[in-house]
């Protein structure tokens, strides 16, 4: 067991290092930051000097090595665009993304499960057919379009909700939260629907499929034969048994909610790390891009590692395999 864990951790670190290497080899295709940093009056000498100062004249492997050296000490460098430490900038922007991800995650899970159960139980009802058809929209429409559509309907036409931004925020320690003001909550509604819609339809379809499978099982028939109420059969016996795969998928989706917040944040001008990353690409702000990519890959690797370890805990067969080798 311990050997398995150690091997998985070592593998995860390797994955991280490779992600970083690939990222750094790509940065020179993103463009050259020096033109953005120097004005119209720049000379070739200025360009060469700045490139040398930033270490951009070095091969990417050397740049990567320098980044790793700093990263080990918790120093991710200074943003080219903002002239401030990258760690500070990310810490400042992270609450916006995490709050948005939390709300859309909750929305996706609760609505997804409720609608999934409903469409499984009333399989032939017209409401179920409607929900299933609409869920196709959620799966197939790009996030970008959904966001613009929601803005158009709820901000421009109905004038109910703000079209962009985070509303008023309150500082709780170092954490800026939008949960404590009315305008903060209003501003959360459209972006969290936009971000959570895909995950919601995914969870809903998954719950529905699992429920239909479970409802066919013998123990459900027995439960019915015992004269239990439909409610108890559906929720105590059937739903409980569908949740194992749902929880696994949801856990993995949590990572993608944070990572794919980039598009939602761009559409709604949401001041999170995703918007920061987009701006960094436009400005070729390499320290910010590198830190963001590493952060996201650490998150994914960590989630996968935890899931793998949970499997070991749950599934005894993995442990016996380990014993044999």
């Amino acid at each position: 067991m311990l050997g398995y864990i150690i091997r998985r951790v070592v593998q995860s670190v390797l994955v991280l290092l490779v992600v970083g290497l690939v990222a750094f080899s790509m940065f020179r295709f993103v463009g050259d930051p020096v033109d953005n940093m120097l004005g119209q009056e720049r000379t070739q000498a200025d360009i060469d000097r700045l490139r040398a100062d930033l270490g951009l004249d070095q091969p990417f492997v050397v740049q990567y090595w320098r980044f790793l050296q700093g990263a080990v000490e918790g120093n991710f460098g200074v943003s080219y665009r903002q002239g401030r430490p990258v760690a500070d900038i990310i810490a400042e922007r992270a609450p916006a993304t995490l709050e948005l991800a939390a709300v859309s995650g909750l929305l996706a899970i609760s609505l997804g499960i409720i609608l999934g159960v409903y469409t499984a139980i009333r399989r032939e009802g017209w409401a179920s057919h409607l929900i299933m058809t609409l869920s196709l929209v959620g799966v197939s429409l790009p996030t970008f379009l959904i966001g613009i559509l929601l803005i158009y309907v709820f901000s421009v036409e109905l004038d109910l909700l703000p079209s962009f931004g985070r509303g008023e925020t309150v500082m709780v320690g170092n954490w800026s939260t939008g949960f404590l003001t009315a305008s903060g909550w209003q501003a959360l509604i459209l972006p969290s629907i936009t971000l959570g819609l895909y995950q919601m339809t995914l969870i809903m379809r998954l719950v529905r499929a699992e429920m239909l499978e479970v409802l066919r099982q013998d123990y459900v028939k027995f439960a019915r034969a015992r004269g239990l109420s439909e409610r108890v059969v559906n929720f105590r016996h059937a739903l409980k048994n569908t949740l194992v795969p749902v929880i696994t998928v949801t856990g993995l989706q949590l990572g993608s909610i944070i990572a794919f917040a980039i598009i939602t944040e761009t559409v709604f001008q949401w001041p999170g790390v995703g918007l920061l990353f987009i701006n960094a690409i436009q400005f070729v702000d390499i320290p910010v891009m590198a830190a963001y990519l590493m952060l996201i890959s650490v998150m994914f690797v960590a989630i996968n590692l935890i899931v793998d370890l949970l499997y070991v805990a749950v599934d005894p067969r993995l442990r016996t395999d380990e014993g044999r080798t």
Partner: protein
Amino acid sequence: MKPLGMAAIAALMCSAASAETFTWAGTTDPQTMDPHAVNSAPVLGFLNNVYEGLVRRGKDMTIEPALATSWEVIGDGEGWRFTLREGVTFHDGALFDAEDVVFSYERASSEPADVKGWFAPVAEVVKVDDYTVDVMTASPNPIFPDSIANWMIMDSGWAETNNATLPDKDNGNFATLNANGTGAFMVQDRQPGLETTLVPYEGWWGEVEHNITQATFKPIQNPATAVAALLSGDVDMINPVPIQDASRLSSSDGVQVIQGIEARVIMLGFAHDAETLKYGTGEGDPNPFADVRVRQAVAQAVNVPAILQTIMRGNAEPASQLVSPAMRGFSATQDARPDYDVAAAKALLAEAGYPDGFGFGLKCPNDRYLNDEAVCQAVVSMLAQVGITAELDAMPVRNYWPELREDNFDMYLLGWSPGTFDHEHPVRFLASTPNEEKKLGSWNFGGYSNARIDELLPMIQSEIDDAKRQAMIDEVTALYQGDHAYVTMYVQPLVWGTGSNINLTQRPDNFFILRWVTVN
């Protein structure tokens, strides 16, 4: 209710009605509040509301007094004497005087300052008395007052107290996040990348035209989001409005579109000094663009009015030279573009030895200028009509400049906005033979060279007499037009959107001046 109470409520309501908050959105957040650290339009444009220079630009771009009340040439052009305005205070209450001007010169011309290039002609700045300053130049400099409208004055005491005597672009200092100018507005709150709030400065020396009590700038990158924010009333003004949305916005209720032309001229450039073509089917063949007849053929094959009508939706003006008519030194005698004439273009190509045309590569940015890639596509199809086949390679601007610096082009698209708003500027950067040492021709990627222009430029730079200077500029213009050094196509439009209750003035440099805004 007692009459007295009624009166009090009425008074309260009045004051509430006259409290005008204003919110505007642009694509780029100013990187810093330090007026000397970064030489970029978003920073200088924003800080023009907070800091002031010795001179400033009026609604029509003319130079007018600001912190200096008057200025005159010293002797035969050894420098300029500025008489400073008395009784001006900075936002923190400190008095403005000659010390601050000398200090701001030293700060803005220091090594870490991005704007130090403005002071290349300056030998020294001397305090004569508390309200007189002499700026000595190495050689006579007729346009010096014109070139310093964005040189903003900072309080020497404030900078020393807060350890910000030099700009620090890389790591930032107190002046990066805080501002203390003499301008009509003070920075009340600054959250980089989120919003910046300004309030009027009660002690401002000038006459107040605006009725704003609080103004907030918010960056919105996505154009569709900005348009929605304007339509829903979340913001009062957006810059820019996407060209394709302009007509839709102007027909919507509650909003209006304000159009003008910018200072930026969009043009095609050629590889003048290349031996061979580098792209397309003609790769490796001798470079046809070295021949002036081929360049003229390109100029006559490009149908600029059609581009303006279709791609720019009638929002831009054709350009005959490297500057727009709003700029100083515009050559009125040379205000004619080559006619659009396919037959003439074909004849010129045949004469130059290319009766069957040739193939080459056109480089183009796709996120730098308004509809830049679409314009390049139109140029490609227009050139095809005279038999020359361009292979279009469009890319983001962050990749584009490195390619041009590496000479990886046969023909390219360029936009130029003269930083000094004077014709001398593009002549120095685009039409002079590249010379690293003298800082000439640093954006002349194609290596265009005309000995007479190189000879005339220093004379233009030091000619104090305006008529003689203009005559030389006219000569230079005729030379680069005759050489078809660039195909100048059009002046890029400015398209802003505002609520219909907003009055403002749009300046050709795309600076948004808050003190000209009234909210009705």
